[in-house]
């Protein structure tokens, strides 16, 4: 356990001063701000008339100035934006060792390769959870400033439940990105994988098979696909968990067994 804790501490040293850390918080924080702008426009009829395309967008989304709409937007942002931003986080954490040339310094140490990867997975999960919490915090702050009516507290807890389940699902489908970073020895392969999953998750969801495509499932669960959420079943959740589990074990197995020439 000592070496596992030490590996985690080493990962913290590596990431706490990184520019990428703050970059992801800024990128991810756009969603609650946009939600806030929608509320502002809808609450103010003059602004609604002047807002043009933003008003159109808010109307197209059936956006209303209430907690249900706002939390729905935040949850969908986690599901769809999360695939992208969490994908960046995973690509950075696992791909940087090759891009920065430090991978070889991690391979012949008393701390095993598995423990080093475990530490990276833990940092990935914590980083994503921090992003999820920070968006929630920004959302609550904006809602408080805009005086969003707090009428149904129980309802908000249910929305929060959906928000966190969506976040966990999105985090889990990010696990295979680690394999692409280590196999591709850098950022390029994992980022290409993230881009492909985003594209395919949209296409496959549109064809009606999204319930069985792991990267579409968080989006469908978040409500981004409307009534398709109801189609998610135990197979959908099993596929999602299996994808994450396989991503984790394949990454460990590959790093332990493959020749390291870079």
């Amino acid at each position, binding site marked *: 356990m*000592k*070496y596992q804790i*030490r*590996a985690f*501490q*080493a990962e913290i*040293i*590596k990431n706490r*001063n*990184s*520019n990428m850390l703050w970059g992801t918080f800024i990128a991810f924080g756009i969603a609650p701000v946009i939600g806030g702008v929608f509320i502002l426009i809808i609450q103010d009829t003059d602004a609604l008339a002047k807002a043009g395309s933003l008003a159109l967008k808010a109307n197209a989304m059936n956006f209303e100035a209430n907690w249900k709409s706002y939390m729905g937007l935040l949850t969908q942002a986690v599901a769809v934006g999360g695939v992208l931003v969490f994908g960046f986080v995973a690509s950075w954490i696992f791909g940087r060792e090759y891009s*920065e*040339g*430090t991978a*070889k*310094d*991690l*391979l*012949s*140490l*008393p*701390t095993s390769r598995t423990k*080093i990867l475990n530490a990276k997975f833990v940092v990935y999960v914590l980083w994503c959870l921090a992003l999820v919490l920070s968006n929630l915090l920004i959302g609550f702050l904006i809602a408080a400033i805009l005086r969003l009516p707090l009428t149904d507290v129980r309802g908000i807890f249910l929305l929060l439940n959906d928000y966190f389940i969506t976040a966990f699902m999105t985090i889990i489908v990010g696990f295979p990105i680690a394999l692409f970073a280590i196999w591709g020895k850098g950022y390029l392969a994992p980022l290409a994988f993230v881009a492909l999953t985003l594209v395919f998750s949209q296409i496959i969801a549109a064809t009606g098979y999204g319930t069985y495509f792991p990267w579409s499932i968080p989006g469908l669960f978040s409500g981004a696909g409307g009534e398709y959420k109801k189609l998610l079943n135990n197979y959908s959740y099993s596929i999602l968990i299996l994808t994450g589990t396989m991503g984790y074990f394949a990454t460990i197995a590959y790093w*332990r067994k493959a*020749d*390291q*020439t870079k």
Partner: protein
Amino acid sequence: MNNQTTVLQTNSLTKFFGETKATDNISLDVKEGEIYGFLGLNGAGKTTLIRMLLGMIKPDNGKIMLFGKKLDSGFNLWNDVGYLVETPYAYPNLTVTQNLKIYYKLRGLENESLVDSIIEKLKLTKYKEKKAKELSLGNQQRLGLAKALMHGPKLLILDEPINGLDPEGIVEVRELLKALANEGSTIFLSSHILGEISKLANRICIIHEGRIVKELATDELTRQLTKKLIVKTTDNSAALNVLTDVNYIAELNLKEEIEIMSADAIANPEVISQLLVEKKLPPRQIYLFIEDLEMYFLRTIRTKEL
């Protein structure tokens, strides 16, 4: 030396990358306290061998023993090994101290003063709060060495450790490595510069196209360097006849100088001088030519190619 413990041993180590044989049947052993120089051109297989010694690449055939234990997935003596493979890289946005703290943690060390003391030993104190990306190439090399040495390893495996260092840095690193060997550390280092390796190593191994072509002690190397007596007179053709008449092995080189290869002439050049004076062919120039190390290295690998 033979009675000393073997620290590193390889047995018929072979590795293929596709159709290419990167190392071919490499067997060697390195004793405790020895500085073992591993020499080869770029692409000779040095880095592949070093990566195999560090468990980064698995050999297709053969085995590796470190400290008498087989190197496999269960090997757990990595804190007795320090290493530097190819160009040393560090986390660019972290300071020298932060970079070293990462390896301090990953090595599970328990004495925090190790970080400061290696910084001081490698003369990095001035740069300890500087980000790695702001360091000169030489100081990046020092940082790489600091990572390799921080935990006081018994075996150091260093790939081109003087790359990028200025002359002062080269001397410092050379002295540091010699001091470590004197304290009992075993050092396995690779280079493509024979001159540098010969100043450090007790034993030298030359690798070419993945195979060991020569292994010898450094003092034996000195004996194997080609030596010739070069003579110039007013009439070199006549002087050559005089010398060959008395059974010296000699010939004219491309510069029309006389090259005498006989060992007694090399040992006693004054005898040659006296002989030529007596024959009215006094030498205008006479000197001992000793093959330099680079020429020896190239001659060795070319002989094996033929």
